[in-house]
């Protein structure tokens, strides 16, 4: 019912990116985020932004929808950037008042932070918009596989993760329902001081916890009845298979990386 695009939600359209193996998408996203920290000048910044635009274009998801996903986080970004502008020092000073000052370094730093924030959030939105959550969980499981050597219970962790993800919409729905019910009992979530607003969370959080615990208990029984034993080996229905396109995607990322290195060396 609630089809609002939120940060991190999947957009069910067809595209090359949607068809890619979730593992390559996850790896590319991680590497791209690392690359962002090697941005040191205008040209490198543009270069990586260009790569992101190609990815957005290939995802077949409209720019507008990305904007809707990022919008709720924009306030946090702006506040961080404001702090950065007002409280970092160095370079030429343009304005100051008490401990606050606007300096040249402060402006540059905040610009870099703003850039990183927006690009990293957009890049991860590209991943989540084109990859269903359970696929991301599968990809994570694959990435974590080496940890099995040091006795990390990777299979349990990933099953836990995918069940948690599976219940996100259920719990969102339930939160909505409880809020509506308490609103019908005269509570006003949009009024009052900060303290009253925090107090207003109690009639939502307590039922939510109580119901979730009950849910978890029932789910555990149901899983046991279906033969789940955390210590026993299991087979896996969903198998990830590499395709040619995944190799092309990897190659694309390699070009982006080499390009970045070249720009840093030659300019």
């Amino acid at each position, binding site marked *: *019912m*609630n*089809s*609002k*695009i939120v940060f991190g939600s999947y957009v069910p359209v067809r595209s090359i990116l949607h068809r890619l193996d979730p593992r390559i998408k996850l790896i590319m996203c991680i590497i791209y985020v690392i690359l962002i920290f090697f941005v040191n000048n205008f040209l490198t910044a543009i270069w990586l932004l260009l790569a992101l635009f190609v990815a957005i274009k290939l995802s077949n998801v409209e720019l507008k929808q990305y904007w809707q996903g990022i919008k709720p986080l924009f306030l946090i970004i702006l506040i961080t950037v404001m702090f950065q502008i007002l409280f970092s020092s160095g370079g030429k000073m343009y304005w100051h008042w008490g401990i606050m000052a606007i300096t040249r370094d402060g402006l540059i730093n905040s610009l870099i932070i703003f850039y990183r924030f927006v690009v990293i959030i957009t890049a991860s939105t590209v991943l989540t918009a084109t990859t269903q959550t359970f696929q991301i969980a599968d990809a994570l499981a694959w990435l974590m596989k080496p940890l099995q050597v040091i006795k990390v219970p990777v299979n349990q962790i990933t099953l836990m993760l995918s069940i948690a993800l599976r219940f996100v919409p259920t719990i969102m729905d*339930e939160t909505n*329902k*409880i809020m*509506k*019910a*308490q*609103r*019908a*009992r*005269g*509570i*006003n979530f*949009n009024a009052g001081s900060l303290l009253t607003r925090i107090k207003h969370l*109690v*009639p*939502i959080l*307590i*039922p939510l916890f*109580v*119901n979730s615990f009950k849910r978890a208990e029932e789910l555990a029984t149901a899983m046991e009845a279906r033969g789940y034993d955390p210590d026993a080996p299991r087979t896996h229905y969903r198998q990830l298979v590499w395709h040619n396109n995944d190799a092309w995607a990897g190659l694309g990322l390699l070009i982006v990386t080499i390009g970045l290195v070249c720009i840093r060396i030659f300019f």
Partner: protein
Amino acid sequence: MAKAAITVKKLHYTYPNSANEALNNVSLTIKEQEFVTVIGQTGSGKSTLVSLIDGLIKPSSGELNVAGLKINATTKPEYLSKIHHQVGFVFQFPEQQLFAETVAQDVAFGPRNLGWPARKIEEAVNKALKMVDLPLELKSHSPFALSGGQMRRVAIAGVLAMNPRILILDEPTAGLDTQATNDLLKIIKDLNKTGTTIIMVTHQMEQVASCANHVIAMSNGQIVADTTPQQLFSNAQRLNKLSLTLPVSVEIAQFLSKNGVTLKNTEPLTLDGLADEITEAMRRKENE
């Protein structure tokens, strides 16, 4: 002629980011002290309609008048929340919304939100618990330590404590056994008798037959029937189209009349009424 408690005119509602209208041109009038049942398949728009009547959502277009409060697409939220002084809403599985440490605190939550003085709240809590037939000793108990049926009654008391003139109930008997269902229906009927307008969403045609004097059937966001139970059940074809069943009494009566038995009333709403019809038919046959 009783006054109108609720009038709805050309109401449209579309959920945010949804392509389809959840309500499409709905108009209706509910009079004071009526017992209305709203029926229809899951997704037919029942829940949307009752949410609009309680001011939990605002219409996309059209107009509502609920207990004298006029609501349309431009109504301010503060004005909307005034409705909660007049209309109570019992959600499905209301026990899932309990949160307070004691029964008394939970029931008092609504009145407190309305800003009533402590004395009045105390009285309202006691009265509400009495209405749902729960002993006052339970007031100091944790609601989570009660049985399922008791928890539901505490939750309903929490709504009744606000002393609503209009009470909306969304499938109040879901998940209860027959005994608990009958007890709860009796409480609701008594409320209706003492002057509360009732709007009850239900899937049980038996409840429509035995409780309501006004039934609204919905399908695909539109009202497909706005009539009395008697009238509704006389049109088996329409019910079939809506995938709704007949109450047993009507089912038997219509089966008999289809098989050539003459009955005066082919839509008896109770088994008692049906028994009368059958007895009379038997007598007639003996006399022939």
